[in-house]
C-alpha cells in the first residue's frame, strides 16, 4: 500500500467539491463501503495484538506470563499514543518534490483531520477518511514492536523494553516506513512491498535479532558444552488462539492494504493471503516430517505465520498458484530457520526472527520472482531488503547498546530463575487449581484474615 497523499486534491476539493467528486467517480455508496472496509481492517489489525500476546504467552513459561501480557498491553496503548503524537506525520510527511525522501515531518497531532475535505472522498480517492487512515496506520505501527517482544521474552527488564519499544515504534518504524509507503526514496526507486513483509515484519525482525544478540540466551537453554535443552511453552491452546487470531487479523492487514474496498482487488488479496497461510502450515508440517516422525504443533503454527508474512509483500501481485508456492516455501523455511537459529545460540522463545525476519525477507524477494507486474525486479527488492536491514540494525543496535549501558537490559539471574512475574510485577499469572487447597486461596496463602469460626464449624 502506498497512501496517496491527497494534498493537491484537497485543495481542488475545497474549491470544487462537486467536481472533485465527479472526477473521482466515487459514489457515496462506494465511499461509505470503502471506508467501512478500512475501519474493519483497522479493527482486524487491532486484534492481531491479542494474537501476538497469546502466541508469546503460549510459547513461554508460566512464570513470565504476566510480564508478557503487560508488555503487549503497553505496546498497543503507547503505540497508538505516539503514533498520534509524531508517528503518523513522520511516516507520511508528504515529501516535497525533489526532496531526498529520507526524513520528513508534517507536524504534531492530527489537526489535519479537521480540514474541510479530510473526511470526504477527496481525501484519498474515496477509499477512506483521514480518521480511518490514522487509525489503520496506528494499528499497524505497534506491530513492529510486538515482534521484538516475543524474541526478547523471559529475560529483558520491563522498563528497558518499554523504553525501547516506545522509541522503536515512534521513530524507527515510522521513518523507515516513510521511505516506501510515505513516498520516499525507495518508493521512487520502484521497490515494492504491498503490506509490509519488509516494512513491518523485517523491521520488527531485525529489531528482535538485535535484542537477542544484546541479551544472550535464556539461562538453561544451552549448557556450558553448548548442548541445547528446549524450553517448552506453557500453553499450546494460547499459542493456537494467537495464531488463528493473527490469521484473522491478516484479513485486515493485507485486505486493508488495498486502501479501498475494491471488490476484485480486496478479494484477490484475501485469496492469496489465505492460500499462502494454509500452504505455510502444510509446508512446515512436511518440512518437519523430515526431522521427526512426531509432528510439532508449534512449528505448524509458526508455518502459518510464515506463510502469511511471506505473501504480505506481494499479496496483490502474485497469482494464487504462486501464492501457495510462496507460502509453502515460507513454511518450510521457518522450520529450518528455527533450528538453525537455535544452533547458532540465537535464543528466540517464540520463533519471531524466523517468522518475521527470515520469511519477511523471503516474501520481499519473492515479489521480484513471482510478481505479475513486470516492473518489479529482484535487484530492487534486494536493495530494499538491505536498506531496511542496515537502518534497523543500526538504530535498534544503538538503542539496545545505550539502554544496556545506562539502565541495564537483562534481569538478574535470581529474577530470571524465579520468573519475571514475581520480579517485575510481584504476582502470578495462573492459579487454576480448583481445589480449596491453601495455595489457591490468597487469604490462606498470605497473611490472611482468620476464616470466621462459624465457617469452620459448619464445614463437613
Amino acid at each position, binding site marked *: 500500500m502506498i497512501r496517496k497523499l491527497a494534498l493537491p486534491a484537497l485543495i481542488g476539493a475545497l474549491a470544487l467539491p462537486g467536481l472533485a467528486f465527479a472526477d473521482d467517480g466515487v459514489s457515496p455508496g462506494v465511499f461509505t463501503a470503502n471506508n467501512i472496509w478500512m475501519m474493519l481492517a483497522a479493527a482486524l489489525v487491532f486484534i492481531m495484538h491479542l494474537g501476538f500476546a497469546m502466541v508469546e504467552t503460549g510459547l513461554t513459561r508460566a512464570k513470565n506470563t504476566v510480564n508478557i501480557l503487560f508488555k503487549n498491553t503497553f505496546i498497543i496503548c503507547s503505540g497508538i499514543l505516539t503514533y498520534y503524537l509524531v508517528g503518523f506525520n513522520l511516516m507520511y510527511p508528504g515529501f516535497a518534490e525533489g526532496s531526498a525522501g529520507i526524513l520528513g515531518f508534517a507536524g504534531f497531532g492530527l489537526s489535519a483531520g479537521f480540514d474541510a475535505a479530510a473526511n470526504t472522498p477527496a481525501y484519498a480517492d474515496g477509499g477512506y477518511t483521514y480518521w480511518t487512515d490514522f487509525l489503520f496506520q496506528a494499528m499497524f505501527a505497534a506491530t513492529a514492536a510486538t515482534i521484538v517482544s516475543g524474541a526478547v521474552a523471559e529475560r529483558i527488564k520491563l522498563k528497558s523494553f518499554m523504553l525501547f519499544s516506545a522509541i522503536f515504534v515512534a521513530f524507527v518504524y515510522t521513518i523507515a516506513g516513510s521511505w516506501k509507503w510515505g513516498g520516499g526514496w525507495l518508493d521512487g526507486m520502484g521497490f515494492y512491498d504491498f503490506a509490509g513483509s519488509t516494512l513491518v515484519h523485517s523491521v520488527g525482525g531485525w529489531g528482535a535479532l538485535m535484542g537477542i544478540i544484546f541479551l544472550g540466551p535464556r539461562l538453561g537453554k544451552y549448557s556450558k558444552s553448548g548442548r541445547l535443552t528446549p524450553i517448552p511453552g506453557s500453553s499450546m491452546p494460547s499459542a493456537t488462539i494467537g495464531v488463528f487470531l493473527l490469521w484473522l487479523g491478516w484479513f485486515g492487514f493485507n485486505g486493508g492494504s488495498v486502501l479501498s474496498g475494491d471488490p476484485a482487488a480486496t478479494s484477490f488479496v484475501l485469496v492469496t493471503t489465505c492460500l499462502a497461510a494454509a500452504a505455510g502450515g502444510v509446508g512446515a508440517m512436511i518440512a518437519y516430517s523430515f526431522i521427526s516422525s512426531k509432528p510439532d504443533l508449534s512449528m505448524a503454527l509458526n508455518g502459518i505465520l510464515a506463510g502469511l508474512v511471506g505473501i504480505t509483500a506481494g499479496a496483490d501481485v502474485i497469482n494464487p498458484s504462486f501464492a501457495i508456492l510462496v507460502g509453502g516455501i515460507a513454511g518450510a523455511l521457518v522450520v529450518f530457520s528455527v533450528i538453525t537459529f537455535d544452533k547458532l545460540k540465537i535464543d528466540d522463545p517464540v520463533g519471531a526472527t524466523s517468522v518475521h525476519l527470515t520469511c519477511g525477507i523471503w516474501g520481499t524477494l519473492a515479489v521480484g520472482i513471482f510478481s505479475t507486474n513486470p516492473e518489479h525486479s529482484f535487484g530492487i527488492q534486494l536493495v530494499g531488503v538491505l536498506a531496511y536491514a542496515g537502518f534497523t540494525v543500526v538504530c535498534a543496535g544503538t538503542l539496545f547498546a545505550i539502554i544496556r549501558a545506562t539502565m541495564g537490559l537483562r534481569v538478574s539471574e535470581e529474577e530470571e530463575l524465579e520468573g519475571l512475574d514475581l520480579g517485575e510485577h510481584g504476582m502470578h499469572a495462573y492459579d487454576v487449581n480448583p481445589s480449596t487447597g*491453601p495455595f489457591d486461596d490468597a487469604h*490462606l496463602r498470605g497473611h490472611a484474615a*482468620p476464616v470466621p469460626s462459624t*465457617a469452620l464449624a459448619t464445614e463437613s
Partner: protein
Amino acid sequence: MKKIEAIIKPFKLDEAKEALSGIGIQGLTVSEVKGFGRQKGHTELYRGAEYVVDFLPKIKLEIVVDDELAEKVALTLQEACHTGRIGDGKIFVLPVEDALRIRTGERGAAAVSVG
C-alpha cells in the same frame, strides 16, 4: 527426634501454622495430598452422568522436632485443627534418627533448632 505428620483440612493450615509458631516451631514442610477415609466424598456431575469423587483435598504437614517437643506439637496441632467433624484428619509420630541442616552441616537437634 521425631517427625510429626499431620493430615488436616486445607482451610486449617493457617491456624495450624499460627498455633505452631505460638509454641516456638519455626519450620515445617507442607504438601497437598488427597485423603480417603470415613469422610464421604462428593458427587460430581458431568453432562447428565454422576460420579463419586472419593478423594478429598487435604494438607499434609511434616515437622521434625526434638523428642521432648513431639507431644506438645501433636497436641497443639490437634487442638488447632479440630472442628469435631468427620475428616478432621490424623497425626502420626515417627522416629527420626538424624537431621542435617544443608546450609551449615549441623547435625541432630541443632539442625532443626531456631538458630
